[in-house]
């Protein structure tokens, strides 16, 4: 007998279902079923994927939802469920409306952030009967599981009410569209008698019956995963009672034969499943793009800038053309034949794909940002299009950098192009609000991200559910790298930080196995960093909406689903470097009166390239990581094109494919530049014969095999995705055939194919690198010429980049810029720049760095008030307001005129914000303590702020003596706690004498050593990276900071296996190893031994007389020399 499962929960019934979609559809198809329904709880999160998965195995997908509905016949103790299936696409639209109504309740949307959503109970969706009545057409309803209202009344012995509910739903959905659902889940008596009561009711009322199994997992071995998920959901352990937990393990995808056995006494209920499956015909419209129309009439001429406003009667195609030609004249002056031809070609492709509105929407958004002075730049493959460049969306000239339109929008491939735009992160919300205003709240929603279980989250949550020791779980989760939970068992064997860690994993088999099973399951929804979906019609026609935290309405499909549905997604991303640059430009204008236009700075500025070659790039966009600094030192760039190459080369792919070595060797003339065919020379000349960019793959395919660039892009994509050897051979044959036709030797053609096949997977999108390269160059220019202003901007935009504020501040000091403590009379909300007059014969600080920029001399960065530990926005506003009237004359004056609570005043005192009074912090603290309560605001209303809460203090505590503002040590320690950086000495400077005795070299002096010398270095870990390597072995790269700068340390497999736990877990390290010198400024240490310096500090603190601490002795006992 045939049977179709019509009540099925996948893992998209979040924290309840334990069935991965692919496993569900493949198993159902394998069991000979011809259809399968998906009925997740109050959501359609899996709908798009389910549709694709079912179709791929020849199953008919039926989409439905198990809704939580308001009871009809009276109050019940728990939720009541109802299963609804879409009969057709209209039914699907109703499902979207119903889920949205259940999740948004009666709240009205009025913008991106609606205050009333913040009070919505997001975890308890509930559909009112009124809302259900509004969208009940084109649906088939099943009475639900044991939590269905009819079942609940029957179990309560109230047959009358059960009948009333059944009659109500029959009336609502129609006589043939409401079914009594029977389940035989082998429940213990008396629960198992429920199905007979339901069948009896169905007979009495003449209602059809249908058999289901309330599937929650595919095979019985996932029953315990489902149990754990429920425990996680209810925040309970497996030993605790949770009413929702299942009595047995029968909720699996049973084969038709098993269902036949269970329903041998009610065979008609089985037959009905096939009848319903026959009646449900839902298809997702995946062939059309659903682009919103760009309303030309709403264009504000004032925002057009150098672009013309639309003319009456003009359509979007023609207007885009006019904009592009106007933009081309603005960019190039004269429109050359090359520009004209390329522009015309791109416009034709855009018009043929009906994408004119899309480009206008993005242009309009960028115009809005520009008109408000919000920094905005396009990124990604959009930079390959000349249209993006002339529309001022991207800033890198595609013609100058050999960027190819086909990489962005391939005429030979269906699909929605993706234009991502980065905005100043501080003002991104203004842009988002504009989108809602422009396209209407019904048609805009934030894109959601489905957060899935990865190793750390899985260990934490499963461990908690299993009732394991919390401290043990936290310690294990902390030791885990960011990885997939499926690899946990393997990692437990291989990674030293786990193997030798504090938690014995040998008896954690169940934990590891459950984590593996749960891996990749969606856990919860969150808001995508910047994605907005803009619909051509109200979004609830296509997807359900719900509310994420902070009251933001999100579409319940993630970015991949949105793309599959042909909807327009805009990534409005916040980029902190834009914020830092905006601040920097403001500081420059304030100090010098100069309005610097970064778009017109020369791209061959000598000081900028000198800075890049010096590798002092801390703070620079994309070029500050230890790996990038290392690469800059080796590459010694002298032109902008090399910056693009550097950004592209230091990526996991190129590093794994070992593309850096040949590039550098050829660049420096250490090996000859060769080409497999003369036709490759013009394509690869700029990269010395090495394929680095994806665009080059397209060009090679065109030059050698005669492919069009579009075909070349298809070839690149085919090579990038996993292909079977047979498919690869077919691609090869096509390529070689084309090459031979153009007179290329077969052997050479095969070698070129191998070369591009090897690189296609790793090559980087040059347009993206060029877009980011522009910003990277601008940051380098700013640091080279305005280091104080630039680093002040970087400090104000924290957290960002690779390094903590402490490291940025140290970098500033090395460049001769002083870090000034906060001052209630001088500090602004953010970091600012001040000119420093020499004090009483004191000299201005000199740059420590011999090679860095000199522009910072005589300047200081004043600490921003809002960054002080414990400072609230209200307190800062209060200070600035009072100060605008007149400066504070004393501590008493400050307390009387502001509402800053006492604990914050204490912090301000300790941070030297009252230094202008000429009193010491101790005196001021006494004055504050003696001040009457009426004169100082109390802490009420500022809960969470504690006086001198140093619980989160770093391990630097152990290196430094107690907090005491009167001593140099105490000053640094207080600064680190209150400000996150030191306004005076670096903490390491206090240990230099002892460190020197142990032969530890400073990072500034390491340049004096030769390649191969054995050295000892020590410092605070400021960056740690574990990139994938070609060999698959582990390599950890660490940047250590001491008082003179940064030194890079590489720990390879053997060292990592031996000291892994210390390397990964210790914040302050003492390293011994071999110096590796690959260029004048590319110096690193390959570690042989690593010790945690914290242990050393601790030992010394306990025994101050011990000048040679224990850990250092361990080093000293070893034989080494240079």
């Amino acid at each position, binding site marked *: 007998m045939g049977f179709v499962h019509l009540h099925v929960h996948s893992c998209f019934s979040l924290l309840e279902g334990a069935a991965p979609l692919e496993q569900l559809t493949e198993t159902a198809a394998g069991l000979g079923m011809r259809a399968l329904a998906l009925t997740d709880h109050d959501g359609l999160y899996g709908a798009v994927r389910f549709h694709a998965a079912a179709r791929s195995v020849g199953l008919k997908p039926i989409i439905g939802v198990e809704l939580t509905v308001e009871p009809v016949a009276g109050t019940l103790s728990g939720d009541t469920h109802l299963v609804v299936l879409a009969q057709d696409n209209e039914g699907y639209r109703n499902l979207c409306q119903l889920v949205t109504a259940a999740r948004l309740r009666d709240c009205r949307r009025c913008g991106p952030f609606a205050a009333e959503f913040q009070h919505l109970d997001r975890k308890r969706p509930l559909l009112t009967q009124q809302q259900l009545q509004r969208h009940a057409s084109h649906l088939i309803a099943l009475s639900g599981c044991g939590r269905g209202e009819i079942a609940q009344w029957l179990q309560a012995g109230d047959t009358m009410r059960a009948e009333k509910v059944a009659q109500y739903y029959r009336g609502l959905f129609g006589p043939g569209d409401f079914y009594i659902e029977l389940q035989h889940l082998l429940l*213990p*008596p008396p629960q198992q008698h429920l199905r007979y009561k339901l069948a009896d009711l169905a007979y009495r009322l003449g209602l059809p019956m249908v058999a289901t199994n309330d599937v929650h997992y595919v095979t019985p071995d996932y029953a315990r995963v489902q*149990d754990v998920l429920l425990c996680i959901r209810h925040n309970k352990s*497996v030993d605790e009672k949770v009413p929702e937990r*299942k009595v*047995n*393990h029968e909720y699996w995808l049973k084969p038709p034969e098993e269902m036949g056995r269970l329903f041998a006494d009610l065979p008609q209920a089985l037959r009905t499943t096939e009848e319903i499956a026959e009646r449900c015909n839902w298809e997702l419209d995946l062939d059309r793009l659903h682009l919103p129309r760009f309303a030309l009439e709403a264009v504000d001429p004032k925002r057009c800038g150098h672009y013309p406003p639309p003319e009456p009667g003009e359509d979007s195609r023609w207007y885009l053309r006019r904009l592009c030609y106007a933009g081309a004249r603005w960019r190039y002056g004269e429109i050359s034949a090359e520009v004209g031809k390329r522009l015309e070609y791109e416009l034709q492709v855009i018009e043929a794909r009906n994408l004119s509105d899309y480009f206008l929407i993005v242009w309009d958004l960028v115009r809005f940002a520009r008109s408000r002075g919000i920094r905005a730049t396009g990124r990604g493959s959009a930079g390959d299009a000349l249209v993006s460049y002339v529309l001022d969306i991207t800033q890198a000239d595609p013609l100058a950098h050999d960027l190819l339109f086909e990489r962005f929008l391939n005429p030979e491939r269906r699909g929605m192009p993706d234009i991502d735009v980065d905005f100043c992160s501080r003002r991104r919300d203004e842009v988002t609000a504009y989108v809602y205003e422009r396209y209407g709240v019904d048609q805009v929603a934030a894109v959601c991200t489905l957060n899935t279980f990865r190793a750390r989250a899985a260990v934490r949550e499963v461990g908690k559910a299993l009732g394991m020791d919390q401290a043990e779980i936290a310690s294990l989760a902390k030791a885990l790298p960011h990885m997939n939970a499926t690899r946990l068992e393997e990692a437990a064997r291989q990674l030293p930080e786990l193997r030798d860690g504090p938690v014995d994993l040998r008896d954690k088999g*169940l934990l590891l196995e459950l984590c593996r099973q749960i891996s990749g399951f969606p856990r919860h929804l969150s808001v995508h960093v910047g994605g907005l979906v803009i619909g051509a019609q109200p979004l609830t026609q296509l997807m359900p909406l719900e509310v994420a935290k902070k009251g933001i309405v999100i579409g319940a499909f993630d970015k991949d689903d949105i793309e599959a549905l042909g909807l327009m997604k805009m990534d409005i991303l916040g980029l902190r470097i834009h914020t830092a640059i905006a601040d920097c430009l403001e500081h420059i204008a304030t100090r010098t009166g100069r309005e610097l236009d970064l778009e017109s700075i020369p791209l061959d500025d000598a000081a900028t390239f000198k800075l890049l070659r010096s590798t002092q790039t801390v703070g620079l966009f994309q070029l500050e990581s230890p790996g990038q600094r290392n690469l800059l030192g080796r590459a010694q760039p002298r032109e902008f094109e090399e910056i693009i190459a550097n950004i592209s080369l230091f990526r996991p792919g190129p590093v794994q494919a070992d593309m850096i070595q040949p590039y550098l060797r050829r660049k420096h003339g250490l090996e000859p530049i060769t080409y497999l065919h003369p036709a490759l020379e013009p394509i690869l000349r700029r990269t010395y014969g090495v394929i680095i960019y994806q665009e080059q793959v397209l060009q090679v395919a065109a030059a050698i095999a005669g492919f069009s660039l579009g075909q070349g892009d298809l070839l690149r994509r085919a090579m990038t995705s996993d292909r079977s050897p047979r498919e690869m051979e077919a691609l090869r044959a096509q390529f070689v055939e084309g090459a031979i036709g153009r007179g290329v030797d077969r052997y050479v053609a095969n070698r070129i194919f191998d070369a591009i096949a090897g690189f296609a997977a790793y090559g980087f999108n040059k347009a993206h690198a060029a877009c980011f390269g522009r910003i990277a160059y601008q940051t380098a220019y700013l640091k080279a010429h305005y280091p104080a202003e630039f680093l002040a901007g970087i400090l104000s935009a924290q957290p960002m980049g690779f390094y903590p504020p402490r490291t940025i501040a140290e970098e500033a000091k090395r460049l001769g810029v002083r870090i000034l403590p906060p001052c209630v009379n001088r500090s602004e909300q953010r970091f600012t720049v001040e000119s420093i007059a020499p004090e009483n014969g004191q000299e201005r600080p000199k740059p420590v760095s011999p090679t860095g920029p000199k522009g910072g001399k005589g300047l200081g960065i004043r600490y921003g008030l809002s960054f002080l530990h414990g400072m609230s926005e209200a307190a800062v506003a209060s200070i600035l307001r009072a100060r605008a009237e007149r400066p504070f004359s004393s501590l008493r004056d400050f307390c009387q005129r502001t509402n800053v609570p006492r604990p914050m005043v204490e912090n301000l005192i300790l941070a030297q914000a009252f230094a202008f009074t000429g009193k010491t912090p101790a005196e001021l603290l006494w004055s504050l303590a003696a001040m009457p309560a009426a004169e100082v605001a109390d802490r009420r209303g500022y809960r969470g702020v504690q006086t001198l809460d140093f619980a989160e203090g770093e391990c630097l505590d152990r290196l430094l003596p107690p907090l005491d503002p009167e001593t140099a040590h105490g000053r640094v320690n207080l600064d680190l706690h209150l400000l996150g950086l030191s306004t005076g000495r670096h903490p390491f400077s206090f240990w230099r004498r002892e460190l020197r005795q142990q032969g530890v070299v400073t990072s500034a002096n390491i340049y004096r050593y030769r390649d191969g010398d054995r050295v000892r270095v020590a410092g605070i870990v400021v960056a740690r990276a574990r990139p994938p390597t070609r060999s698959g072995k582990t390599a950890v790269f660490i940047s250590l900071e001491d008082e003179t700068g940064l030194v890079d340390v590489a720990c390879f497999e053997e060292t990592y296996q031996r000291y892994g736990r210390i390397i990964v877990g210790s914040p302050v390290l003492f390293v011994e190893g071999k110096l590796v010198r690959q260029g004048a400024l590319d110096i690193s240490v390959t570690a042989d031994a690593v010790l945690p310096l914290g242990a050393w500090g601790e030992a010394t603190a306990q025994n101050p007389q011990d000048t040679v601490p224990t850990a250092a002795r361990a080093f000293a006992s070893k034989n080494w020399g240079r």
Partner: protein
Amino acid sequence: MPQVFDEPLAQVSFGLSKIWPECFYWRGREHRVQGCCGEWTVAGRWWLGEGQRHFFRLVTQEGLTLDVCQDEMTGQWTLTAILD
């Protein structure tokens, strides 16, 4: 009132149904099953290594109604109750 037991069954054999026992030995005596009038399962504490137990309510040829179960992990059969 049912009498509760926790006693192992021996030599359990199956008939045509292949699901519930047709014959078993309890306390050294053979019991032949006339029919099964109920079937259910109860999950064990899997985190302690317990398997799911599959229960059958059987009526013997002697007219006894009793509940027996099999541990799905160990395969062990147990008499759990005799009903009046």
